[in-house]
């Protein structure tokens, strides 16, 4: 028979917001008669420093072992009171907050009914607090190093940041070289305000920095093939290819994983209904021509760009397009037409480039609803694009006809899709993707760089379209998140997570399937030679989905045990 708890009830009038609507005297009279209630009193502002000091003192003096604070919403002051209770030497689970302000005082019009409801709420909290037990905390040792997947600019910057913060980094790259998209092909010039910056140089500097850093270990031609464990203690298996294509398997222990796999450009021939040829090229191919030098544009007098046919999203591509055309007009005598739906200018300095391009004689034509049509005229060896630009006005067109632009070279926009292997990696790591295949489901602003699994982060273009600057911001953010997570070798956490009862468990694996955080795993018990369910406390968020789904009721949340909930509801039912 457990000892009877000594419970204290603290009522807060919150100025007079609560006491105006609820009869405190009646409540006090009602609960005074209860045997467990050692103390019941009214305060005006419990959250003020002086009253809080008295509150802590009373807990200690009366040797209370259960507390009910009747005040405002736990959303507002929940953590505040929990902290105060811990400071008074009591476990946080021995505190129950009753929200009288938002749920009683502000709801009822009559004082009588709100007082009745208040008494019910406090009574159910009292029934429950009697059953609530202290929740222990546990300390675990965690690995302080990080695995970064992807050697593009996002991965490089993250690795550099983390090493500067004192963490050890393992950098994996699938290709044989670092630098990612920027090293393969990119706009050679990036122009912001007044400076021309060669992105390739920037990336090469970063590669050099990474290579010379003793805290960063690089594996090229390496891929992650398996990841076990959870936050703080991941066991990663990586496969490294030699020069002779021989495979080598390595095991690493890491504390966190960062995905920086980036994006790629893809030419969707099916969507266009056109195949690429010498006269119809993609934007990447054009960049190749620009990079290869002078002779590439011999005999070409006009180029036509078409954008916006396959999707409305022109980020990254629009940025590149304006820079490319400006480069072409300044260096070659070529007439350029740009046929688009919207011009992308939403970046620093792009409006200026757009203006310059127009001043230099580049013609922008904007179609609205009707998509432009592309035809290859074999007789003249030219490509014709017919479109309808409403801004030109009726007089411009012949009766029923469209504007036809004929050119020597047609440049088509590509789609930007996640890098190859993104899906495979998401399956290995069991993290969710959006409809377009990028990591992270919707609402990336709410929890940027996080995934559904704790300890696995995403950064840069693999979580949605991002330019270089945004990617660099991302890597700064992820580095601080990881530093916060891993800066201590030992992490203390409360055991208020799901607990499995092995005797009841029938190994149906329902919990394993339903857990959104992948905190539940099958574990081999060496001694008994049998498998059992293991819940990783660090990865578990205490959401309770597994508890509600378990058909054998083998799972329990220690802060919401069945008997506690039933006790709480029972009062309200009668």
């Amino acid at each position: 028979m457990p000892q009877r708890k000594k419970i204290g009830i603290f009522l807060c009038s919150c100025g007079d917001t609560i006491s105006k609507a609820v009869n405190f005297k009646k409540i006090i009279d009602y609960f005074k008669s209860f045997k467990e209630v050692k103390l019941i009193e009214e305060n005006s502002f419990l959250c003020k420093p002086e009253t809080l000091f008295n509150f802590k003192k009373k807990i200690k003096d009366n040797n209370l072992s259960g507390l009910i604070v009747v005040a405002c919403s736990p959303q507002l002051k929940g953590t505040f009171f929990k902290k105060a209770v811990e400071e008074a030497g009591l476990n946080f689970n021995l505190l129950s907050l009753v929200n009288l302000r938002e749920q009683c005082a502000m709801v009822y019009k009559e004082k009588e009914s709100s007082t009745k409801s208040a008494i019910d709420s406090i009574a159910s909290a009292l029934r429950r607090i009697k059953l609530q037990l202290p929740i222990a905390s546990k300390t675990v040792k965690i690995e302080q190093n990080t695995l970064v997947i992807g050697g593009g600019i996002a991965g490089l910057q993250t690795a550099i940041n983390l090493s500067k913060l004192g963490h050890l980094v393992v950098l994996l790259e699938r290709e044989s070289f670092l630098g990612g998209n920027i090293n393969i092909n990119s706009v050679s010039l990036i122009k912001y305000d007044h400076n021309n910056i060669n992105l390739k140089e920037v990336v090469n500097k970063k590669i050099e920095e990474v290579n010379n850093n003793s805290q960063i270990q690089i594996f090229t031609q390496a891929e992650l093939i398996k990841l076990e464990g959870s936050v703080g203690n991941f066991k990663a298996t990586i496969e490294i290819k030699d020069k002779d294509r021989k495979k080598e398997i390595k095991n690493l222990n890491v504390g966190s994983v960062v995905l920086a796999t980036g994006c790629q450009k893809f030419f969707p021939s099916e969507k266009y209904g056109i195949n690429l040829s010498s006269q119809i090229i993609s934007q990447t191919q054009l960049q190749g021509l620009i990079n290869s030098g002078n002779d590439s544009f011999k005999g070409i007098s006009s180029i036509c760009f078409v954008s916006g046919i396959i999707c409305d999203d022109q980020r990254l591509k629009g940025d590149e397009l304006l820079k490319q055309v400006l480069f072409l007009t300044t260096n070659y005598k070529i007439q350029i037409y740009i046929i688009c739906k919207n011009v992308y200018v939403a970046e620093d300095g792009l409006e200026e480039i757009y203006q310059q391009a127009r001043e230099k004689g580049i013609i922008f034509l904007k179609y609205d609803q009707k998509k432009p049509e592309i035809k290859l005229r074999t007789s003249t060896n030219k490509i014709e694009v017919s479109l309808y630009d409403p801004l030109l006005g009726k007089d411009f067109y012949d009766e029923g006809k469209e504007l036809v632009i004929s050119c020597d070279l047609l440049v088509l926009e590509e789609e930007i899709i996640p890098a190859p292997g993104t899906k495979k990696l998401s399956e290995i790591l069991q993290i969710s993707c959006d409809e377009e295949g990028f990591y992270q489901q919707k609402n990336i602003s709410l929890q940027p760089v996080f995934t559904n699994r704790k300890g696995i982060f995403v950064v840069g273009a693999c979580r949605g379209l991002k330019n270089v600057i945004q990617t660099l911001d991302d890597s700064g953010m992820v580095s601080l998140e990881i530093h916060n997570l891993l800066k201590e070798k030992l992490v203390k956490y409360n055991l208020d997570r799901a607990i499995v009862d092995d005797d009841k468990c029938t190994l149906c694996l329902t919990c394993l399937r339903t857990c959104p955080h992948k905190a539940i795993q099958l574990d081999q018990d060496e001694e008994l030679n049998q498998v059992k369910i293991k819940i990783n406390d660090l990865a578990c968020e205490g959401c309770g989905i597994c508890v509600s789904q378990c058909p054998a009721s083998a799972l329990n949340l220690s802060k919401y045990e069945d008997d506690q909930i039933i006790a709480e509801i029972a009062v309200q039912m009668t």
Partner: protein
Amino acid sequence: MSNSSVLVIGAGVTGITVAQRLVENNIKVYLIEKESYIGGQALSYGCKGVNSCNDCSVCLLQRKIKDTEGYFSHVLFKANSEIEEVIRKEKNFEITLRKTIPFIDPDKCQGCGLCEKLCPSSAISISHPQSIPQVYSLSKEQCLNFQNKECYICLNSCPFGAISFNHKVEKETLSNISAIVLATGFEPWDPKLKVEYGYGVNKNVITATELEKQIYIKGFVFRPSDKERAKKIAIIQCVGSRDRSTDSPNCSRVCCAYGMKMARFLKERDSEVEVSIFYIDIQPFGKEFTKFFTKSKDDYNIKYIKSIPSQISEDQKGKLKIKYEDSQRETIKEEYFDLAVLSITMNPDKKFEKLSENLDIWVKDSGFCENPNSMQTIKTNQREIFAAGACQGPKDIAECIANAENAALEVILFLRTLNNKVAKNEEQKEKREKLLCLKERK
């Protein structure tokens, strides 16, 4: 890092993020703010989700403000303060602050609300319902005492003696500042400069923030002229941006997202409202943009008109006549609307110019902070001064936070190099190599 401290200027969403990160890494932070509360401009925006989340990221600010509960006691917060003088002393800065104590002293005010109830001219109110700290402010325009009528009701009734009718000015000097983070944010452009739209003259031409206020206070969208429900609303993009006539040529980046989400928000709240968006070029944003755009056109029936109105005039009944070029029919069209909402652009804070002179940092033509190396956006021409958030150019809330975190990281690393604390312990390294089985590879 014992003596060094960091000064963060501006306690908007960027400033509090930087301060939070620095405090987490045991760095002494001064956070100064010209208003009496934290949150900045983003406080005037509200959530735009009705049936589902519209990803407007306003809740991020609320969460950031809620987070302050945990660490704010470690931040040296200076409200109502502005920078008066900056002196460089060797590696450090010495900064003189000018603190203007408002009529209701926030240090003394406990937020009891007694004065608000008693004030006969309702001049006292809470500056922002969500502001932290929750303090009242007195409006000079409404207060009887400033209209040559004697009234001391609030003064005599305040139990804490927080009210006085004089502005007190205090000066304070902060020394040993090793780094400064600029997070001064932005200021909405003045729509009165766009004379054709008659903001301030035509009562039914309002800004988007005013529209939000209508919804959160009254619960529906109405015409300010007769307080009747607005059935036909025009949202006009690019007011004060991409417009050489008002000397603001640049795109303001965030308005397309804002206007389109606003339109969707209005439609979700009341499907009978007709919403039209006037635009130049749609700028994509967020995730799955193509899907968002098609859905808002097809499912929500929002009219997208690729044209910017040339004139707005109001008739006697308060109907707005909007004149624009209808590109589909190639005519000049005059259409009547109940309400015109202007998506106005972001300008740098008015006081930023003076501050940049004081700190000797470079400024762009547009007035925003310039960074000499465009790959490191958070750096300025001074090594010790960092810039984050919307003081560099228009940014949305999520971008500001990402930028702020990056700035915080740079500040942390900067302070480390300053104190030569880059860990290069050989013994430690060896241990780590063992841990990662790197040796065997060598």
